[in-house]
């Protein structure tokens, strides 16, 4: 009853990925527009976040409702380390944020992986909301609903004054570099022995125990890995956006990676990446022109779940597979 899975052998090898990264790299020189650089940067950050989320959802079959908690942990770690410990170097802050986000994911994950299906989702939701309540309540540390302002960190020791320049050039390429590394690392993980076991867990988690693999421990490893990617996304997002607040921990924000994964195609490696770009661009121009953006977005979600359940990339892969007949293909 479910669509054909996708043999991981990409159609044209690594070509589409290289073209994509190069194209993104050309945006600042060609357009020079701070605004577009900011938008693409945001899309990349959300792509990393969605890739981390999809490692659990699309590849291990675990639907988490509280993933904003780990993204938010990354953001707040970055902001608070900068504010209270006066660390300026991005690299140090980045490391600290990723570690703290991963620890949060590890602790919450350890408890949540004991449960299956809807219990797992609701437990992650509950933990996410407790973190949200903490962030709002400890308002003399976290600034509560006013949030915390994030200054410009130093990149590789260089300090910058003009935020416009910072976003368009140095930090843009920094994000692009980290994004490329994340894509490569995730691609290797998903095609590794561990990745194959995760996909087995997705299809039939109980039977995996009878292969000699502890289903619970491997789900936990997947949860921690997902936390790493969320931490990376959170750490990149804080300086890019310049300000973080409790809405980045609220469960409403946890729906974003689910949107992105399902629009892009959660059973395809490229799905969350393409989905994120579509999401950011569509969302952005819709909110600019109408106050009824929720109606527009609700309609898109209903359309995709009914007509394109495999998402954009899933649909394209299926179409290509049918036309190529022989090899099972995938983007």
């Amino acid at each position, binding site marked *: 009853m479910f669509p054909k899975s996708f043999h991981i052998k990409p159609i044209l090898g690594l070509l589409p990925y290289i073209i994509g990264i190069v194209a993104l790299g050309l945006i600042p020189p060609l357009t020079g*527009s*701070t*605004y577009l650089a*900011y*938008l693409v940067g*945001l899309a990349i950050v959300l792509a990393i976040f969605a890739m981390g989320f999809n490692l659990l959802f699309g590849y291990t079959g675990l639907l988490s409702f509280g993933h904003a908690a780990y993204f938010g942990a990354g953001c707040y770690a970055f902001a608070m380390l900068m504010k209270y410990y006066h660390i300026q170097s991005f690299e140090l802050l980045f490391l600290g944020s990723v570690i703290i986000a991963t620890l949060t994911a590890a602790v919450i994950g350890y408890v949540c992986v004991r449960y299956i299906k809807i219990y797992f989702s609701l437990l992650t939701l509950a933990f996410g909301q407790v973190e949200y309540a903490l962030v*709002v*309540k400890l*308002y003399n540390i976290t*600034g*509560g*609903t*006013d*949030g915390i*302002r994030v200054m410009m960190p130093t990149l590789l020791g260089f300090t910058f004054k*003009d*935020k*416009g320049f910072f976003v368009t050039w140095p930090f843009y390429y920094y994000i692009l570099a980290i994004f490329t590394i994340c894509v490569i690392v995730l691609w290797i993980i998903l095609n590794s022995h561990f990745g194959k076991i995760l996909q087995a867990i997705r299809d039939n988690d109980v039977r995996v125990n009878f292969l000699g693999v502890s289903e619970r421990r491997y789900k936990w490893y997947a949860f921690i890995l997902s936390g790493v990617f969320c931490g990376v996304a959170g750490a990149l*997002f804080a300086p890019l*956006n*310049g*300000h973080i*607040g409790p*809405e*980045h921990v609220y469960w*409403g*924000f946890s729906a974003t990676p689910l949107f992105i994964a399902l629009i892009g195609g959660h059973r395809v490696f490229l799905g969350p990446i393409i989905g994120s770009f579509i999401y950011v661009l569509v*969302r*952005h121009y819709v*909110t*600019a022109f109408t*106050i*009824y*953006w*929720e109606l527009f977005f609700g309609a898109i979600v209903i359309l995709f779940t009914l007509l394109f359940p495999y998402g954009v990339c899933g649909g394209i892969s299926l179409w290509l597979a049918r036309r190529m007949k022989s090899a099972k293909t995938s983007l």
Partner: protein
Amino acid sequence: MGTYKHWREVKFLSEEKKEVSRRKFLATSIGTLVVGAVAGYAGGYATAPGKVVEKVVEKPVEKVVYKPPPKRPVPKEPIKLAYRDHLSGALAVRGEWTKRAMELLVEETNKEGGILGREISLTFHDEAIPVEECVADFRRLGLEAKVDVIIGTTSSGVALAQAPVADEIKTIYIIPHAASYKVVMEPHKYVFRTNGHTGAVPIAMALYVLKKMPDVKRVAHIDMDYAWGRDNWNVFIATLKKYKPDVEVVAEVWEKVGEVDHSTAITKVLAAKPDIVFNSHWGGQLVSLVRQAIEYKFFEYTTFVCTVIEEAFPEIGPDFPEGQLGAPWTFYWEYPGYRWNLNRWFVKKFIEKYGVPPNYPCMQCAAAFFAYKTAVEKAYEVLGEYPTKEQIAETLAGLAYAHPGGMNRIRREDHQALAPPTVGVTKIDPKWNMAVLHDFEVISAELVYPPPFTEPLEWIKTW
């Protein structure tokens, strides 16, 4: 209409900062003659907008004969004004009102030739989207749509996020509503706030309570459990305790934003038998709190002290209990006894168009709108050519201007408008079939605004 007491000392608009002792203010009943000065000065200075302004400005102010520079032509294309507010979600309650106010202001001003003959094109943008979308949209307005001025923002979190971006995109950003004192704790070249903040209005409220009920002892409070509610309460109780150390806090309730069931909160507060109950709720949450409190006969047992009381007037209508203390946060549409042209003009037009008097979010919009309009006109006078964004920003810093809600002086250091808060007591007005504030007082800005960049609680300690 209630009696209106004259204030004895003219405090306002004197440039040098004379240290005013609060004790003297309380001992000699009502302090500064603010509204009177405002009315007198404003009346002469700027009546209806547009045509009258030119006449007044030409009259040379100083003794030295001042010959204005030759006027270069004003650019033709319209001034792009972007207004941003919560037009969806829980805060949309105000969106509806502020949208009306802005449409009216722009429409009327355009009828009279806009600003210096340039027509204003107004666009609306929703801020009830995740903050990073808000910030991205804010950038788009500045960089891509190249708007002249952005007025708006209700939530302090969003204002704090967008303030640094305004300097980045070099676009004037006037904040009419977001009221956290933190918004102006850091200097921003292009950011201005034209209404009172959480460090000032609760002090005014406390001073008014001390004056109205000198023997208050038992105090309770119900507040929203986020920065807004916390700041309001902490500043209010600190001021109260400064003057009456024996004041006792008998019951505390922190409600989550969006809470709809207040029955337990009301019961807890009533059980503690307080003299007054402080509250800083607003929007739908205030409406449901007052609605439930009425049925719990809350107002027969204690008195309500609410910093944003006017928000509930239209929805509750004639049921609103009389004799409750409150503030419309900073500006009120009706100054009994003293009405000046701008106030009369705006209220008349508003009632003509919508059949309802403008509530405080509308007055806050008007305060922001006239700040920009006056700054542009003044800069044009001085420069003789249409001012650039940077020049308008410099004019705005330190600008003293009149607007339908009163008189504002934007402080040069932190661009915070020293808008004197108004406080009063509720009374049902048969004309509007809803509650209004009467027995009115305007509390001088020097008494309530902390000096630039200082925490209000620290400032209160220094009294």
